[in-house]
């Protein structure tokens, strides 16, 4: 008769730090990828609108990597040893090793692309360039150079750098290191490969290698959940910051808001598919699914599904419709996009934690 070994139930090898780490790298990689798409679009139309989303996409990517990996390191027994990645991470059969190098590539890419887009007098998608056509069209009135320079220095992130006295230095460094626009975008494309890899790694990190002893983490369902949620929440973060920085969300923000709604809806569909279909395909996943719906109903159903997916979808669509009908003031629209970002990020973290906490380790069935 076959029975189970219950030496480690429920699953308990990893704690909350791993869940937050996986959520943050998913957000970071999704934000970078969507930022890069916006960067590409900015060279074709509405340079400033798409450029803002690109800039804040890169920033969210950078912030996610500043927060996530240190949380992982704090879980390890020897964090300093782990930081010597080229010396210690040598087993490329392990997703943790692959992920470490992908994160390194993404971190470098997010930093460079952010600095090149956000700083420097010749930075792409800058307001001056976007406004130049209007100035010429309005009868040749010259732009007030002093006023433009003042506005440029006090705008959002640049204002922060200016206040700490680093703006001129960072501007100079950005202009000196920035390659031609074609090369910059090509490099951004190369770093996008690392970002896509991190997005996949954010699903594969939930795993046990070839043995796959945690049925809840079935990759058929988990991969699309992580990919859609990473892209959707990353973009929500970028759009939220762009809206707050601009205070008057424009057409580009509205367009991206609809993309956010679509990506979060796709995430929701895959999460529902996991709940409904996974137990049928893998009966061992049933206890984990039950845990999600009972023991961890608050973080999963409440915070992740309703708070992190359903409400942000409704708010995103509602804000766009409201703005188009002039029923929403710029301030209210800004607050809505910022709320979407906040809820989506909290929801993403709750989703990652729920998948970790609800999982049950499935030992090999040993015949007695």
């Amino acid at each position, binding site marked *: 008769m076959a*029975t189970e070994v219950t030496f480690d139930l429920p699953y308990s*090898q990893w704690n909350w730090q791993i869940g937050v780490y996986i959520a943050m790298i998913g957000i970071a990689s999704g934000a970078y990828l969507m930022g890069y798409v916006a960067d590409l679009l900015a060279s074709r139309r509405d340079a400033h609108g798409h450029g803002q989303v690109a800039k804040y996409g890169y920033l969210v990517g950078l912030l996610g990597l500043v927060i996530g990996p240190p949380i992982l390191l704090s879980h390890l027994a020897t964090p300093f040893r782990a930081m010597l990645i080229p010396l210690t991470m040598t087993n490329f059969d*392990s997703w943790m090793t692959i992920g470490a190098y992908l994160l390194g590539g993404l971190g470098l890419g997010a930093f460079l692309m952010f600095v090149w887009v956000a700083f420097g007098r010749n930075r792409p998608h800058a307001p001056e360039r976007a406004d130049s056509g209007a100035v010429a069209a309005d009868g040749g009135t010259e732009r007030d150079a002093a006023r433009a320079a003042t506005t440029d220095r006090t705008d959002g992130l640049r204002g922060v750098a200016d206040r700490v006295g680093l703006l001129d230095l960072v501007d100079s460094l950005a202009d000196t290191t920035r390659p031609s626009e074609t090369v910059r975008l090509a490099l951004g494309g190369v770093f996008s490969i690392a970002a896509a890899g991190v997005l996949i790694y954010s699903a594969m990190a939930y795993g046990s290698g*070839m043995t796959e002893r945690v049925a809840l983490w079935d990759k058929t369902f988990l991969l699309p959940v992580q990919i859609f949620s990473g892209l959707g929440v990353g973009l929500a973060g970028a759009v939220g910051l762009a809206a707050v920085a601009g205070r008057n969300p424009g057409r580009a923000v509205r367009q991206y808001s609809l993309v956010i709604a679509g990506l979060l809806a796709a995430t929701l569909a895959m999460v529902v598919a996991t709940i409904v279909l996974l137990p049928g395909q893998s009966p061992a996943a049933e206890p984990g699914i039950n845990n999600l719906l009972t023991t961890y109903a608050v973080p999963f159903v409440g915070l992740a599904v309703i708070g992190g997916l359903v409400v942000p979808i409704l708010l995103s669509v509602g804000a766009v419709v409201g703005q188009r009908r002039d029923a929403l003031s710029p301030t209210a629209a800004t607050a809505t996009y910022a709320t979407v970002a906040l809820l989506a990020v909290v929801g993403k973290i709750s989703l990652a934690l729920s998948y970790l906490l609800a999982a049950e380790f499935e030992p090999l069935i040993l015949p*007695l």
Partner: protein
Amino acid sequence: MSTQESNSGPARVIPNWESCIDCGACEVACQRTWDLPPESDRIQVVALGHGTEEEANKPMQCYNCVEAPCVEVCPTDALRIRDSGSVRVKADMCIGCHYCGVGCPFGAPQYPDAEVPNAEEAEPMGSRSGGLMDKCTTCEPRQEEGLEPACSSECPTDALLFGTPEQLSEKLDEDGVSTPFNDEAAEIVFGEDADEIMGD
């Protein structure tokens, strides 16, 4: 059983659960032999069929798997399969990520110095953090002296069998019992020798 390695593969300890009487002598022998702290569980008597009529406590430890899942997932190569066939961890390369604990289907990796909160403190977020991996060494230093591993040598009912795959197969045949492994487990533990060891 012999401690010599043969052409059929490395020597390892496997349980004969039908003989186990849950006395815990294996745990004590391991800890005493290697002067291990009480929280170390290189061999651990675990609950099987918990909550069922079949519930019983039996020993589990590292089986030095041929297709070792822990070796595959270890990011730093701290876990390696030695020429002798035993799976060993190099403590100075382990970063304590617990990936091996996730990968091993037998619960062999242990983290004796990890922070493990009490059950009531573990909810809803907690479990383990920190702690370097430690595991059964199949008493290689004892084997080099021609001795069996401490657990199998001190088991009063011969519930822990030690030997090469060929020797284990003969022993199991003599006793008319099967290994405790199902097909999937046997393939991980014995690799290509699985069919031969499992027999009929």
